[in-house]
């Protein structure tokens, strides 16, 4: 039997510039019984060879190569299949993790014999010039932010009532990222919790499935992951038809994956209304925050005539593509003007202000 307590899975793609800092933040964990499985998602540069060489003599780091570029979900699935640890966690290749993180989370996991340990927040690095090594920032440049609504201030075991868990999820009380969580490996295997084959949102669906399946789901306060922001509003120019097509595909896939995710949970046989409610939350986010601003900027005609967008409708609906897409366009045309503030959370200015507020509160 292996003595590895936590296997950390890290997908990477063309990540040469930053990945070593991320891996080093894991090697610096106070919890030593860990393995780090880094999955190269067929980078087009020499990321794989670079990491292989860099960690040649580090027995806790394993670098593997995916057979094809399938997105972070598929890369993580490959990583999980190779993992031997008692618990699984994830980290992205451009983020960092505080040294005591895994030790704290693992301790809670053991204390409650948890299937899942879920931390409530993250740290946003606030620096005019973002360093490659996030760990080099002093603590007063890290802005703690709680992602869960009404987050708990002490460790709690969630009610086993699935309805209550769902109600909380619908109220955004349990964020869907897969990092900042520990998953008991056998729990994942026994319950066949796998990443759906999607390029986005796969983490939200994965986490939701775990929330609905876990016998013991522990939520603990904690801000351990340092989440890198781009420091600039880069995506505005990317609000093109390709962006709409990508988001549309994700939304339509989500609509197929969510019911699948619910089907395996007995509770929903008697409570099918949750499927509709979940869909409403996810599509409202997709339509208003992501697709909406791009759609309104481009206009219906441009979107409708774009061959990539058309291909998405045809992939999903075949002969019904014209009719179903027309329903969607009609609804999008009725959406009131929506602000394009997705990028706001990626800007230094926004977080500098948040950090000042936080530091002021602390000194009081």
């Amino acid at each position, binding site marked *: 039997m292996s003595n590895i307590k936590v296997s950390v899975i890290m997908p990477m793609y063309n990540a040469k510039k930053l990945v070593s800092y991320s891996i080093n933040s894991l090697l610096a964990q106070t919890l030593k019984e860990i393995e780090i499985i880094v999955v190269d998602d067929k980078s087009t540069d020499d990321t794989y060879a670079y990491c292989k060489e860099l960690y040649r003599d580090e027995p806790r780091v394993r670098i593997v190569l995916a057979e094809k570029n399938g997105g972070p979900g598929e890369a993580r699935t490959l990583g999980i299949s190779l993992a031997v640890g008692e618990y699984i966690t994830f980290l992205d290749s451009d983020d960092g993790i505080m040294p005591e993180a895994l030790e704290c989370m693992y301790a809670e996991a053991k204390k409650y014999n948890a299937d899942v340990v879920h931390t409530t927040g993250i740290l946003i690095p606030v620096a005019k010039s973002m360093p490659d090594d996030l760990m080099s920032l002093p603590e007063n440049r890290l802005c703690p932010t709680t992602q869960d609504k009404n987050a708990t201030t002490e460790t709690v075991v969630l009610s086993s009532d699935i309805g209550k868990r769902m109600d909380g999820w619908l109220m955004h009380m349990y964020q869907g990222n897969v990092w900042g969580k520990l998953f008991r490996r056998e729990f994942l295997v026994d319950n066949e919790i796998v990443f759906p084959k999607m390029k986005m949102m796969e983490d939200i669906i994965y986490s939701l499935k775990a929330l609905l399946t876990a016998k013991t789901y522990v939520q603990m306060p904690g801000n351990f992951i340092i989440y890198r922001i781009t420091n600039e509003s880069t995506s505005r120019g990317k609000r093109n038809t390709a962006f709409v097509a990508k988001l549309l595909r994700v*939304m*339509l896939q989500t*609509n*197929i*994956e969510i*019911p*699948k995710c619910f089907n395996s949970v007995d509770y929903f046989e008697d409570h099918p209304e949750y*499927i*509709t409610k979940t*869909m*409403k939350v996810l*599509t409202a986010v997709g339509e208003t925050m992501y697709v909406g601003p791009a759609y309104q900027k481009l206009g219906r005609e441009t979107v409708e005539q774009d061959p990539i967008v058309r291909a998405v409708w045809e992939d*999903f*609906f075949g*002969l*019904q593509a*014209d*009719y*179903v897409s*027309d*329903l*969607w366009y*009609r*609804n999008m045309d*009725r959406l009131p003007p929506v602000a394009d503030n997705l990028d706001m959370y990626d800007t230094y200015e926004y977080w500098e202000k948040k950090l000042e507020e936080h530091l002021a509160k602390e000194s009081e």
Partner: protein
Amino acid sequence: MSDIMVSIVIPMYKASSFIVECVGALCRQTLKETEIILVDDCSPDDTYEKCVNAFRDDNRVTVIRQEKNGGPGKARNTGIKRAKGKYIAFVDADDSYVLTALEEMAAAAERFNADVLHVSGAFVTFTKNMPMDLTTLPDDELIKMQLDREVFDSPTLITNDMKQRLDDWLAHFYHWNVWSKLFRREFLLEHEIFFKDLSLSEDKNFCLNCLLHADKYVKMKGFYYIYRNEIESLSRGKVTPAFLAKTLRTLFRISECMRAVLETSDFVADNPQYIDIVLEKCTSSLDKNYVTPAYKKLGREAAEKSAEVDTVFRELFGAGSAYIKKLFFDAHDPLPAPDESAGDMNTYAFWEKMVEKYGQGAVIEI
């Protein structure tokens, strides 16, 4: 070779109260070389037994029972396969023909050896005392309905130019009913023209199929078929979730069924742009004339709760159906409610207004 000139195929569903009189009237047609094929679509009442008993000794009448309920299209297909006549006519169980109808229609068809004989008009009943036997109605209780845009004074062989035919079809020159027409039986069999599995628009699909394949398509003016009107509207305010489900199922199947027909045409193969035009026309007309009114009358709440409606979406869109259902509701909610003042063509009140407007005895174009 059989000496039957016309096989009259009648699909029946819960037709117990009037079917015997209906068949009786058809037996009095001046054309005697006919057979009547009654196909009971698995009615839960005694329609089948009543017909079997009533026509036991009449060798012109054949009574068949479908093993399970499949809609009028499937029942008519059964009839086509059993028919022996040179031509086939379709009659709905509560309707009728004027007594000389089949004689005159068959004569016109024979003159051209027509594949399809298309009559551009029909009668609709206009009476407050609806008889069982519609052939007994006096002239002033029947209204002449003009169904097509284009009318010829004498029977005319129409063009074989398929582009012209399709363009004219799109412009409503060829009404889609199956009851004001004769179809040469061997023409249908040769081109494997049958009714598709649709609950609405199956007649439109069938007629377009004929138009695309008929070498000799003959149009004539005239009023022969008698369409039974309701004295009061039965449907208004009484839309059920099952009816909405039926309109939706048709809406989602119509493209596939129309495409299947279009793809049998060499002309369409060379001019594929017609596929999109025809599909869009069929879909939008179904949505506008059937689905939207049914949805608006039923209301979102009832539609959302209905298991039958849910099944339609689920069958077609599988796991992701809930989102498509929501898209459908959201897109239809802002549409205006159907215009009740325009009237329901199946009511006395509607035709009363039309007669006032056009005068007694006038031909009313619809």
